[in-house]
């Protein structure tokens, strides 16, 4: 599985949806993922890829990690893997 599919699988699991229902342009809000779900998703991503994701729930928009939609999360994860591996 590539990075994109692995991230989608994690997000789908959090949203209790099938991976096929999670599209790159879905926002976390569209998928019904709240702030707790977001923190859990980030934890799952860190565990899956063995990376550190810079994210502070107090200032989500100011974090370097862009969570505006699934596509931005995937490219964020790809960038972090490239940086940290």
């Amino acid at each position, binding site marked *: 599985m590539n990075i994109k599919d692995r991230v989608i699988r994690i997000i789908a699991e959090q949203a209790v949806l099938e991976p096929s229902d999670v599209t790159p342009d879905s926002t976390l809000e569209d998928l019904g993922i709240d*702030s*707790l779900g977001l923190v859990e998703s980030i*934890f799952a991503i860190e565990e899956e890829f063995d990376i*550190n994701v810079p994210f502070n729930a107090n*200032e989500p928009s100011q974090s370097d990690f862009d969570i505006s939609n699934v596509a931005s999360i995937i490219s964020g994860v790809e960038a972090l893997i490239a940086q940290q591996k």
Partner: protein
Amino acid sequence: MKRVVITGAGTINALGHSVDDTLEAMREGRCGIGKLEFRDVERLAIQIGGQVRGFEAEGRFNRQQMTLYDRFTQFTLFAAQEAISQSGIEFVGDDAARSGVVLGTAGGGVSTWDDNYRSVYEDGKNRVHPFVVPKLMNNAAASHVSMEYNLKGPSFTVSTACASSNHAMALAFDMVRRGMAPAMITGGAESMLCFGGVKAWEGLRVMSKDACRPFSANRNGMVQGEGAGIFVFEEYEHARARGAEILCEVVGQAMSSDAADIVMPSKQGAARAMSGALKDAGISGDSIGYINAHGTGTAANDKTECAAVADVFGPHADCLKISSTKSMHGHLIGGTGAVELLACIMAVRDGVLAPTIGYEEADPECALDVIPNEAQEVKVDYALSNAFAFGGLNAVLAVRRV
């Protein structure tokens, strides 16, 4: 109902090892938050906290006591000694039989758990010290206070996360008010500043890496602290009869539950606790001059709390003063309400309002007079102390100048 007064106060926290030192630091707007120092701290993403410095158990407690006292119990006993000796109260006869200890703590002996898990999991040992259980239990501190001071009435520990101390003090107040006990030792303690304690909080991603800036638009999270605050709550006539010095009167309390979310605060729950405390005290919102806010420095708490204050107090919200002293001593979790009650005592007794330090940028969602950066001198008749915990459990106390 009987009147309840505070006749003794004691503390240890990042700002000082006594009430006088702590209040002086609050008056001067000093920050007790700094770089954490303990084993494996380099493995943490969050490396700051309001750590108690210069407090060594060695020399203070004997070998036998050291095997039984977790750091949170040590803090409690240290603060209890200051409070009870200031009060001058002695527990003998009927007073001893009916008086007790109600304390708050969220984690109890966290560093004892941490040290012993490390020993069996990391170091591979198969044996732990025989007193691990009596050392780490949440009621250990309350029990040791009862033993040390001959308190034989109702004693127990309340654990409601960040509201633990306020729930404890609310109950102690009620017990004295109803005539169940002539005096109660109350307050709380916390000591989570160890690798496991901070690592757990780190996971939630609500901690700041640089500073606690409550109500400031650029706030980015909470900072943990540690320590204890202990008080003698005493029935007014009992205190008067023995000529005790009265620090302030406790006049009301209220507790509420959000029944909504395990971590997100609720404006309604907070508002119900504040208005409940006013009603219990039989006073109107207009008589409140100062609120010691829960003010954690997280995005969610501070704006929710300010909105709740605006709802409860209406136009008076713009006249009253509100500050978060967590900016100075950090968030003592289960012990925080106890240390923060000291700021309320200073407000009603001395007319000095502790500031919210680290305040840099106004936030339209926190548009109250948060006493930015410098203490103010204002005569205050009544003050509230807020605590709103994870799990949606809230407790608010009201105190009055005597």
